[in-house]
């Protein structure tokens, strides 16, 4: 029992999950390649993915109240939410770019006579395409993680309610400065 308490279950589940997923991928490799191909062949995939990402990012900014406007704003105060509003294009563009690159790398790597070899990168050697694949995977990863965080923060109600803080002038303070808590 004491031994079980010492086990870091989070990592145990990750090892088991990856092993299981890897075994499934090995067993059903043909079906998975077909599923990925079907995914990349969705009509207007880039527009759909980019549109969904843009909508989620804007909604997230609205929920987090990063887009605050008032009639008495100074130019500097007005610039901050405008810059924030414009930054919403970053995540969708990264996602669309990584989907396009992944599609090219996938077709070049897995394409055969049955569904046609398409060379998206005809002037690149094997190892160059590998590096494109690695960068694509990284771009895909960061854009998906960002998107997941936005979805989580936008769709789920906060488990904790955040309260508004009001400053107090020194003359209204009752009591002494406490020691820092940590």
């Amino acid at each position, binding site marked *: 029992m004491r031994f079980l308490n010492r086990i870091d279950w*989070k990592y145990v*589940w*990750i090892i088991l*999950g*990856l092993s299981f*997923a*890897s*075994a499934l*991928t*090995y067993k059903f*490799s043909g079906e*998975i390649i077909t599923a*990925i191909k079907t995914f990349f062949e969705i009509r207007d995939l880039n527009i759909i993915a980019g549109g969904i990402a843009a909508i989620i990012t804007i909604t997230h900014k609205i929920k987090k109240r990063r887009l605050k406007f008032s009639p008495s704003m100074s130019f500097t105060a007005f610039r901050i939410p405008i810059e924030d509003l414009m930054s919403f294009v970053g995540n969708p563009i990264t996602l669309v770019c990584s989907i396009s690159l*992944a599609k090219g*790398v*996938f077709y070049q*790597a*897995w394409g055969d006579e049955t569904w046609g070899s398409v060379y998206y990168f005809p002037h690149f050697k094997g190892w160059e395409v590998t590096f494109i*694949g690695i960068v694509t*995977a990284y771009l*895909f*990863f960061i854009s*998906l*993680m960002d998107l*997941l965080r936005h979805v989580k923060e936008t769709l789920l109600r906060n488990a*904790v*309610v*955040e*309260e*508004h*803080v*009001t*400053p*107090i*002038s*020194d003359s*209204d*303070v*009752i*009591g002494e*400065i*406490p*020691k*820092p*808590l*940590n």
Partner: protein
Amino acid sequence: MKLYVHDKNTKVKSYLDIVAPTRGELARTIGSGWFSLLGNQYHVHEVIAESSENNLTAGAIVGGIIGLIGGPLGVIIGGSLGGALGNESDKGEANKVHRFNSSSI
């Protein structure tokens, strides 16, 4: 990272609607070292930071899904790298929490 104080009456955590890297920066953002929250007075020294991220599992899952393109080995490599990146992000958050909690004005 989230900032909270213990409610002076109920001892329950009350979360602030702002975030700052240190207590000094928090005081500057609020405009004073003292502030009022739910009718009670607090000093920024009473504010505690806690981590609000868990990217390890999400990173491993997303990395594993991306790795599907590379077959069984791709799943293992993608999942491991995704988990490592997520874990690194969690550590960065833990460092930010430590920095805030060890700061004072």
